[in-house]
């Protein structure tokens, strides 16, 4: 029971123990077919306190956060919210599955971009992400991906080499700092 309580508080806002494994989350999941563990299995692992296995799954990085599982759960378990927590823990503890670590790399690059600019600079984000992914495992197809789209985007006025920045970037940085410094609760 100790594990269950510990897990429950870590997964604030949803009652993991309410899940009775009906599998409706998995039935409606658009990417269940790609996952190594099904959404209902992830919830079960959390109930059992076996977080290591859940954190190391590829499933949490295949998830598209479409909220179908959460919306359809007959027990109101926030399955998508549970996967958010698993991703956060997996990232913080360096447990992300190597096959899909590029998803984490992308999301980190995204947040980094927002921290600097306050708004997303798409060109900068893609450049950073591709470079990081290339340095990590020499992913040439990823490096080349969509390069042919660039001129088409340019032609359509959709490519902004100099992205927008908010005026008060200092406050954005302070917000990030307050949310990332450990030991400040919630």
């Amino acid at each position, binding site marked *: 029971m100790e594990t269950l309580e510990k897990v429950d508080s870590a997964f604030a806002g949803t009652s993991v123990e309410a899940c009775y494994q009906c599998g409706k989350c998995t039935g409606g999941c658009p990417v269940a077919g790609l996952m190594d563990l099904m959404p209902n299995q992830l919830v079960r692992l959390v109930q059992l306190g076996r977080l290591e296995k859940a954190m190391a799954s590829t499933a949490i990085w295949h998830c598209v956060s479409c*909220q179908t599982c959460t919306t359809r759960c007959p027990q109101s378990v926030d399955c998508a919210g549970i996967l958010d927590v698993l*991703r956060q823990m997996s990232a913080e503890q360096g447990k992300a599955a190597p096959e899909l670590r590029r998803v984490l790399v992308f999301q980190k690059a995204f947040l980094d971009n927002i921290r600097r600019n306050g708004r997303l600079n798409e060109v900068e984000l893609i450049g950073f992400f591709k470079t990081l992914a290339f340095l990590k495992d020499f992913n040439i197809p990823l490096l080349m991906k969509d390069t042919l789209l660039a001129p088409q985007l340019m032609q359509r006025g959709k490519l902004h080499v100099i992205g927008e920045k908010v005026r008060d970037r200092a406050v954005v940085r302070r917000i990030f700092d307050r949310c990332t410094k450990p030991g400040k609760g919630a």
Partner: protein
Amino acid sequence: MEFGYYPGCALHGSSNDYEKSIRACMKVLNAGLKELDDWICCGATAAHSLNHKLSTALPARNLAIAERDGVGSVLAPCPMCSMELIKAGRALRESEQMRRQMSEIVELKVEGKTDVINLIQVFERIGIETIKSAVKNPLADLKPACYYGCLLTRPAKVVQFDDCERPRSMELILEALGAAPVSWNYATECCGAGLTMANEATVLELANKILKNAAGSGANCIVVACPMCHVNLDMKQSAVERRYDTAHGLPIYYLSDVVGLALGLNKKELAIDKHFVCARAQVKR
């Protein structure tokens, strides 16, 4: 009528065609948009996946700006942004401690009282009858598949908009414009959204199913109200066709595109000429 406006990063980036189209419609319908001053990114999937606190704080800063400037209703045309703003607003309204903590973090007092709405709701508030009476060019040839994707209606308890399994709000608008929306099965299936860059294979697979079902259900176009849906179905459509050795050729319109066309605006005014899949004959004007 005036609405607060939170464009979000996409509409000021590669989805600027969506913004142009919305602004053109609003002008014709005499509705003003007041952009939130110095708004910041909502954090999107990256924040809610990696830092829960940040995923409340970033939207909370925008809600605080709206409250400070006395903006009551805010249009967020990107469902990712609107869902994140609504979610943060709910968390704030539910807990005094959260209001105190977030006000401190975002350096502005925030209570979460802003009414955040999507583009469909803006048209509803302007009035479907009002729009109907302003139609100059009924869309008789249009048989759209109205595509809601994931976050317009989900999570249902958070966004509380339309029926999450069988939404009809876009169809009602399209019918008022003279179009004949089709009945199909993928209206609320996800397109893969922000995984376009990091996990393209998933997006192409999901997009292919959506395009195939729309065409198979007799649709001659898809109507969306989300910048990510548009990217994945329009910009990625040729990649989908290459990967699955098929030819969909389905034009993808933003909801504001079709409203604008019916109101008598042309392709250029609505930035439909910036889309990737060539718009069909009936909108060549």
